[in-house]
């Protein structure tokens, strides 16, 4: 649709070479967003992120919106001067922007007017500066971009005396900052809860689940405000594992980022590779050969099986069935991981996709091993897991009707993957905007309408079966031929422009927004992390439930902290 005609003043087409979408005046942003959502049916806000265009002295905030019915999306961009970056918040129109806007505030220092709780989200509250600004430098700063000159040809291991090891005096202990013992967090929780309980003379109770707790799947904290055992309000607190992945990504060369994507969701490294190479291949305008496309699909679907098996096993762990179901699931995972090891050389950090193909071909023996696994072993084992868990009364009692996220709320909060599909929205990027060769296979989107923890579990179960179906077809149709377009390049030329590569990862829609300026390093590298954005709706799922259900809800969202915290 033509936003420029709809809003003749203040909306212009983005005509920079390699770019697309609309540049919207910041005052018009809420109107444009309202129009897109209410009138044009762009009901799903996929990603919000910032870009620091330091040479032009402006910040650009980029919104990607899609229709859950499928089809291409719209990109809108809003500019704001670097000196005084303030934008209207979109949380009232797309509540899914809540955490993403907080992230932009945290990493870029762009303020969002009207945001209900604009605090830092990934970094600690005493951190000085906003690291994704191009003029921010880390304490061990060496050079703006890799490769670093000190490595070759002089190999200066200790560095010359003038090497810029500048650590800002207040980088780790900013002057004048005092720990506020999370007062801002607790105040926000109580404000949103709207006063104290009235019926009895009781007080709300603040309980922190985590950060050191086995049920939080890593170093993750849930600050919950309780009325007795009932959850009144809740906020996830994250960032304990934050390593500024995106800043590292901007220092890295384009291929150098592929092994770093492995470390996002470390259970699904091949899916992560997939999203990133899709984004960069769009920029480069290349496509991999047929064989590579099929192998990519096979490997990505095996990854989905592994991730869902793990998730189902650990959901049961969270419910108290300590490690028996998890170990049954891990047994199958082990067989798949052995295949990954034989194919890619590593069990988890696969680093196998390349721009325009794959690192190397896979041999006939491995293809046969995959075939035997999906034909002979996995279906029976999934059925066994199903028989073991689905009808179990304890699983039903703990999961059914717990952690309700109604359809509209799931959409509004930009939930993705099994969380969204268990709320009755049949939205799957593989069908909505098919990438690679997914349009050639016959399979169904797993979707259920229960909106609860139990249906999220069932959707994962269904998806394992659908993945097996896809792999069988892909193996049957697997063509011969090369697996790489052209020669593998260690410094590919990536033309200037922007690209948003998104794939349906096991946890949900995984997007990579990459901006290139034609240099060997990306100017901007952003990850739309499903584990992170799915947490936006967590408070909604838990409110009114019991505190013990928080653990079940968290298990059903299936977060991986490597991806949540990045």
């Amino acid at each position, binding site marked *: 649709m033509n936003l420029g005609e709809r809003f003749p003043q203040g909306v212009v087409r983005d005509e920079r070479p390699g770019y697309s979408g609309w540049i919207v005046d910041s005052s018009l942003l809420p109107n444009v967003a309202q129009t897109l959502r209410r009138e044009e049916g762009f009901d799903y806000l996929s990603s919000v992120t910032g870009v620091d265009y330091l040479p032009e002295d402006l910040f650009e905030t980029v919104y990607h919106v899609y229709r859950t019915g499928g089809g291409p999306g719209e990109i809108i961009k809003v500019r704001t001067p670097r000196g005084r970056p303030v934008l209207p918040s979109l949380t009232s129109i797309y509540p899914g922007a809540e955490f993403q806007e907080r992230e932009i505030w945290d990493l870029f220092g762009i303020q969002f007017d009207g945001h209900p709780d604009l605090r830092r989200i990934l970094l600690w509250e005493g951190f000085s500066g906003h690291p994704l600004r191009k003029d921010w430098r880390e304490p061990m700063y060496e050079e703006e971009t*890799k490769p670093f000159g000190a490595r070759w040809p002089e190999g200066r291991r200790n560095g010359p005396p003038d090497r810029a090891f500048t650590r800002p005096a207040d980088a780790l202990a900013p002057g004048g900052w005092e720990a506020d013992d999370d007062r801002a967090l607790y105040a926000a929780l109580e404000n949103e809860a709207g006063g104290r309980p009235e019926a009895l003379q009781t007080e709300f109770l603040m309980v922190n689940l985590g950060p050191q707790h086995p049920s939080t799947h890593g170093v993750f904290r849930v600050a919950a405000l309780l009325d007795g055992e009932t959850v009144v309000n809740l906020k996830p607190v994250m960032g304990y594992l934050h390593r500024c992945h995106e800043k590292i990504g901007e220092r890295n060369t384009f291929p150098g980022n592929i092994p770093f994507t492995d470390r996002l969701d470390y259970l699904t490294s091949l899916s992560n590779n997939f999203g990133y190479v899709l984004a960069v291949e769009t920029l480069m305008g290349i496509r991999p050969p047929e064989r590579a496309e099929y192998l990519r699909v096979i490997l990505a679907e095996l990854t989905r099986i592994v991730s869902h098996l793990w998730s189902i096993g650990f959901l049961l762990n969270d419910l108290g069935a300590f490690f028996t179901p998890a170990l049954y699931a891990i047994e199958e995972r082990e067989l798949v991981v*052995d295949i990954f090891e034989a194919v890619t050389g590593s069990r988890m950090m696969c680093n196998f996709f390349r721009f325009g193909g794959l690192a190397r071909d896979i041999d006939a023996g491995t293809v046969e091993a995959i075939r035997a696994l999906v034909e002979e072993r996995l279906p029976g084992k999934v059925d066994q897991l199903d028989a073991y868990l689905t009808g179990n009364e304890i699983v039903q009692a703990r999961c059914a009707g717990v952690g309700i996220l109604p359809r509209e709320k799931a959409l509004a909060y930009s939930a993705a993957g099994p969380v969204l599909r268990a709320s009755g929205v049949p939205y799957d990027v593989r069908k909505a905007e098919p990438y690679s060769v997914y349009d050639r296979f016959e399979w169904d989107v797993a979707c259920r309408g229960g909106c609860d923890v139990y249906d999220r579990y069932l959707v994962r179960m269904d998806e394992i079966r659908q993945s097996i179906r896809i792999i069988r077809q892909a193996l049957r149709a697997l063509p011969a031929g090369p697996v790489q377009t052209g020669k593998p390049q*260690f410094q590919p030329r990536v033309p200037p422009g922007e690209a948003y590569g998104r794939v349906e990862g096991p946890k949900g829609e995984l997007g990579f927004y990459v901006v290139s300026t034609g240099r060997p390093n990306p100017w901007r590298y952003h990850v739309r992390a499903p584990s992170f954005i799915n947490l936006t709706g967590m408070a909604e799922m838990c409110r009114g439930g019991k505190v013990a259900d928080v653990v079940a809800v968290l298990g059903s969202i299936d977060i991986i902290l490597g991806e949540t915290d990045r």
Partner: protein
Amino acid sequence: MFGLGILKGLGITLRHFVESYWEDLRGWGRRYFTPEGIARRRSRDTRGIFTIQYPEEKLPVPEAFRVIPFLVYADEADGTRKLRCTACGICARVCPPQCIWIVRASDSATGKPVAHPAEFAVDIDRCMNCGYCAEYCPFDAIRMDREYELASRNRSGHVYNLEKLLKPAAYHAAIHPAAFAREEAERAQRQARRTGDA
């Protein structure tokens, strides 16, 4: 019926429990600490206990398995080591965590750089085992090792120097037989083309 799901679940657990003993009895003396026992436990019709009792038992690793890089040299007839590395620096530039340092040698008389590394260092604590250095090396000079028990009490020992990185081509051939055969074939082909051109 209420409780049926639980009974079914308990039945499956019981079957796994009995199976693990049954399999152990069936494979008495052969199931643990033997290569065929390990192969059986990780095969796709594994039943019973499938775990490997590390460190007494170790999983065999596939050829593609990669941990940290090593440098390949060939033994010359006169007993000297001929490095394949030409200090071109591609590995140092492609390395994502930048853990490779190379000092290019220069001719002592003229001062001009020569195709040979004077020093070569890999910080294995920074290495992320991605395998790019081996993948993009145009001279097949750097390959990925499979030794994974690298922990030590001494951090400074984790910066591998040239001496520690060098391994003979025979070692590479032993751990990567298929890749080695392919590389040798390609090398022979290139050689043939060059002599054909000449």
